[in-house]
């Protein structure tokens, strides 16, 4: 007998009313996506819980993937026994013996949600505890601070036994909050902003501005890689690569250099809004942090924000650089983000950008050229990639070589 299930718990708060079934459905989908490399694992919803049947898959790699999924509060390895007292006793003993870590003391916490089962919880505690004591050496019961809590849950379909629990990522399942368009550069901040939006259940439509040949293939590859990392926290992400060169050239030609950056950001926002509309996203997320650089002063945000009335969410707005870096390191985007390739924010950028642009001036400068056709044309040429889906054939070809 061995651990052949993983029991997944999720927060209770979000589980009111109609949300519940959406929440559970999404979470199940996200779990299935995360463990797609383990096809024999089966995910089942039981009342208020999720259960993975491992079916001979090794638990380690599966659990590693679960750690990153939003909406899970904790999870445990579990053994399943038939609803018979002898079977439960033996399974509990095996679960205890196979539990890894300190186990000098333990307690049993039995819960009998399936009332037709004839043994009451209190009695179960005693029977199971006694069985473990009889079959181990130098193990004692400690009901206050046990090394291991053997949790026994008697349910209609069987009894599940777990020892200890691992913390999940918390948050809400990606997709339950709806969709947002993430403005994804190749830097440190925007992937973190995306991650935090996902934490609260947002599904991402990533938007990246690419200006070939001024930004190179590697910068684009880097953004694809970052998007791929983000998929491990939720599910597939569509990456919209915006060909930005023509518009940038037009800005360069028509706008005074100290306002070029402001106007460029306004154009980016207009384009992102159009993509968001098309994808039915209800907000835009970016990695701005107040006062961090010239484009992120309050005046700058005020002027840039003018072009859209779609909500712009800025998860990093109050964070220091160091705090952002810490999250980037934790989620594994940092080492990719710091690769030194130009992106469209760093190239074309004049050194004399105003730090306090004004709305009226920006609007007046924009009148210098008819930008609408550029925007239409750009949006038309957006290239959309499905990151995290299996049809990335080049990737598959490479994987086969290894």
């Amino acid at each position, binding site marked *: 007998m061995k651990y052949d299930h993983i029991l997944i718990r999720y927060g209770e708060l979000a589980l009111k009313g109609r949300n519940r079934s959406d929440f559970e459905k999404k979470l199940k989908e996200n779990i299935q996506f995360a463990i797609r490399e383990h096809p024999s694992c089966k995910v089942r919803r039981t009342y208020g819980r999720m259960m993975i049947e491992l079916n001979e898959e090794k638990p380690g790699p599966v659990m590693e993937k679960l750690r990153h999924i939003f909406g899970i509060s904790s999870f445990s390895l579990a053994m399943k026994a038939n609803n018979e007292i002898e079977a439960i006793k033996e399974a509990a003993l095996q679960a205890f013996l196979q539990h890894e870590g300190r186990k000098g003391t333990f307690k049993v916490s039995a819960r009998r949600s399936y009332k037709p089962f004839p043994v009451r919880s209190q009695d179960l505690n005693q029977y199971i505890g006694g069985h473990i004591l009889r079959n181990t050496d130098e193990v004692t019961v400690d009901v206050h601070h046990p090394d291991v809590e053997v949790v026994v849950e008697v349910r209609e379909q069987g009894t599940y036994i777990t020892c200890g629990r691992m913390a999940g990522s918390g948050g809400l399942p990606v997709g339950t909050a709806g969709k947002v368009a993430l403005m994804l550069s190749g830097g440190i901040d925007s992937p973190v902003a995306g991650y935090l939006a996902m934490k609260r259940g947002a599904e991402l439509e990533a938007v990246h501005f690419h200006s070939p040949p001024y930004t*190179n*293939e*590697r910068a684009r*590859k880097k953004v694809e890689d970052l998007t791929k990392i983000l998929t491990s926290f939720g599910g597939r992400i569509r990456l919209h690569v915006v060909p930005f060169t023509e518009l940038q050239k037009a800005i360069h030609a028509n706008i005074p250099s100290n306002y070029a950056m402001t106007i460029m950001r306004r154009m980016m926002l207009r384009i992102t809004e159009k993509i968001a509309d098309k994808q039915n996203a209800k907000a835009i997320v970016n990695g701005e942090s107040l006062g961090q650089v010239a484009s992120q002063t309050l005046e700058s945000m005020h002027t840039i924000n003018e072009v859209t009335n779609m909500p712009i969410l800025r998860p990093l707005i109050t964070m220091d650089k160091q705090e952002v870096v810490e999250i980037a390191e934790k989620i594994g985007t940092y*080492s990719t983000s710091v690769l030194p390739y130009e992106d469209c924010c760093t190239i074309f950028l004049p050194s004399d950008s105003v730090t306090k642009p004004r709305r009226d001036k920006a609007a007046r400068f924009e009148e210098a050229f008819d930008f609408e056709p550029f925007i239409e044309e750009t949006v038309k040429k957006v290239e959309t990639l499905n990151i995290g889906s299996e049809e990335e054939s*080049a*990737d598959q*070809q*490479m*994987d086969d*070589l*290894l």
Partner: protein
Amino acid sequence: MYLDNSATTKPWQEVLQAYQEAASSYFGNPSSLHKPGVEAETLLNKARESVAGLLKTKTEEIVFTSGGTEGNNLAIKGTALEHRNRGRHLITTTVEHPSVKEAFWQLEAFGFEVTYVSVDREGRVRPEDIEKEVRDDTTLVSVIHVNNEIGTIQPIQEIGERLEKFPKLYFHTDHVQGAAHVPLDLYAAKVDLCTISGHKFHGVKGTGVLFMKEGTVLSPLFHGGTQEQTYRAGTENVPGITAMAKALRISRQRLATEEQRLCQLKDYLIHRLQEMEEAEVNTPNEGAAPHIVNVSFPGLKPEVIIQELTKRDFHLSTKSACSSKLQEPSAVVEAAGLGLARAESAIRASFSFDTTEQEITELLEIFHEIIPEMKKVMGAKR
């Protein structure tokens, strides 16, 4: 019948296919900015992830090299040079591979002091003997994991645990013979540096890995570009690395199914050799790798036996391929205190996952036929 797999192995077909495909489809320089370059870099990164996954390390801890000799030289000289201002004392054993031994000899010529810890009759070093030699100015300890001549497994984990008390000291192991058949859990063994060579597990020649635990710094041997986190300049051997990743993956799968069989095969060969009165088995019965059997026929020249065997299509070797062209006794057998007669007459059979019982039985038959014959001719003189 190829029984010299400790010298090198025959690349597997799948491995060669991967090599060829990588060499023709992903020929770009991984440092180039264009598409072929980006693709080659992507493949390289994937290979690095794959190798790190199989070795259970972090991706950043993998440095690709040209093989065992380079890995050992880089680990030993690189560490000694980098930390030379902190100390110039190094520790190793008397049973190391030439690429370790000679690297230490060069460092001695540069003014470093090296302590060579001796081994018991099974060729095994005692962890406490290593620990005893540690001084304030010791910067590196290097111990081979599986001995390349006689197969003895060194207690790397116990040594690593003992050395943990000395946080400023680096611990390197030459894992070239162990990587396929007795893989180390590198984190559990507390090693900082670990050398692996691709062609010892059916990869292609010219490929290897130096594991460098996070936080380890060393002075590179090759200077130039910023490849391999600047620890090893030079355009990466993408097809070779791809092939090595494939070979390592297959090796792990084969180990899972063949380990028992190889152990039994080794025990079978050892026991049957022990029954021969002319033979003295140098490989220990316990605590040795499942793929190496070393035996001496005292009084006989091993080169002659090798010649006769190869004529009959059985290919064995005298000792390490890196030293077998030198007409010298086996330094390992000698260091184990088994006497000059055994050291001068040692030969080594080394298996692969593909070695069969049939082959071993035939080998034994040939021994029974040719050894008494040779004894008559050569043995009389002694």
